[in-house]
């Protein structure tokens, strides 16, 4: 494995999806409609990362059983976040609940 080529290739394609778009889009005026639509990117992308990981812990099969620690702890963490709006508290309690559930189930 040529590690230099690996790092260079991965670094290059990653940089190319980040920086040029930032520069090009800031040079051309963005229609208000597009700008308004892009406000939905953060919630949509976070939901798209989180939910499949919780309901399909192995990445292939749907597991909605109460023995799925990812799902149960994820829902509880969501409730904590909703009630407290406190990021740190959500992470700490959510992680503790998850580790506890994994040990129990």
């Amino acid at each position, binding site marked *: 494995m040529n590690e230099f080529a690996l790092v260079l290739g*991965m670094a290059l394609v990653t940089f190319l999806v980040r920086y040029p778009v*930032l520069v090009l889009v800031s040079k051309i005026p*963005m229609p208000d409609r597009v700008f308004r*639509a892009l*406000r939905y*990117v953060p919630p949509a992308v976070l*939901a798209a990362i989180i939910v499949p990981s919780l309901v399909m812990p192995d990445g292939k099969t749907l597991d909605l059983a109460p023995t799925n620690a990812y799902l149960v702890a994820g829902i509880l963490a969501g409730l904590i976040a909703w009630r407290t709006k406190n990021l740190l508290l959500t992470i700490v309690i959510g992680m503790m609940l998850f580790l506890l559930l994994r040990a129990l189930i």
Partner: protein
Amino acid sequence: MISEHQVKLEYTSGLREIDSFSHALIIFFMHQLSFNAESDLVRRPRRRVNSLSFGGSMSTRRAEFLAGVKATIPLLIGAFPFGVIFGALSINAGISPLGTVALSLFVFAGSAQFIGVGLVAGGASIPVIVLTTFVVNLRHALYSATLAPYVKHLSQRWLLPLGYMLTDEAFVTAVTHYAEAGDSTLKHWYFLGSELVLFICWQIFTLIGIVAGSQIKDANNWGLDFALYVTFTGMLVPLVKNRPTLAAVVVAALTAVLTNTMPNKIGLLIATLAGVAAGVIVEARFGVETEPLVAPEESVL
């Protein structure tokens, strides 16, 4: 220039004995003018670079930077196990410590790094790994497009590092801050603070993983990946403030589950676009109401 000033009736008591004053200083603020702190806040008399500065902004660069760092610190809890496990997996996949460090320094994209070393361990060729990295990271193009209107006043000197260090976490943190009220001409310092602390800590976490690499071989099965999901959950929930956002979240989540078995995480991109479309459609139909969906008092928890 002659101007006329009218004072509201309730403030007339402030004008008492004004006849005895020789001068009156009037401070005004034109709230609809575009404002650039760099050029508009003249801190010194023209060409008198040695004189004392005066004037100032509500927020300073330093305060913005530190606020960005502070807002990002909780996110490090989620990134810590992720970074350590990456370092360990990379070593166990046969990549040298130097190559592992280089991946974190030059690629700096958590999920792509994970998938990359996973493919190395599985014996994939470099073109396949690079192409996969590209697809996995395509969502960053959406992030850049979302952030671009906020950073268009910045020079390349700023855009280069801001673009280079863009991650899921920094994106959500920065975009949330840009949406808040306040002087947005200094908010790139907040953005930079968030990105820098994530970048530096990611390197430290990777190094810890490299050192621990030989001890932890089955780290991927410990379930520590949950730390990342719980972090993202804590970031997502406060964003859901109205019906269109809720629609975006529900549609993105369902689409992501349905497309989860598609290769190279391409489903993530499809789901995000579907979610954005749902948000736009619901906004066009119902508008954006600012009240929370359910007042906390009404909840059943």
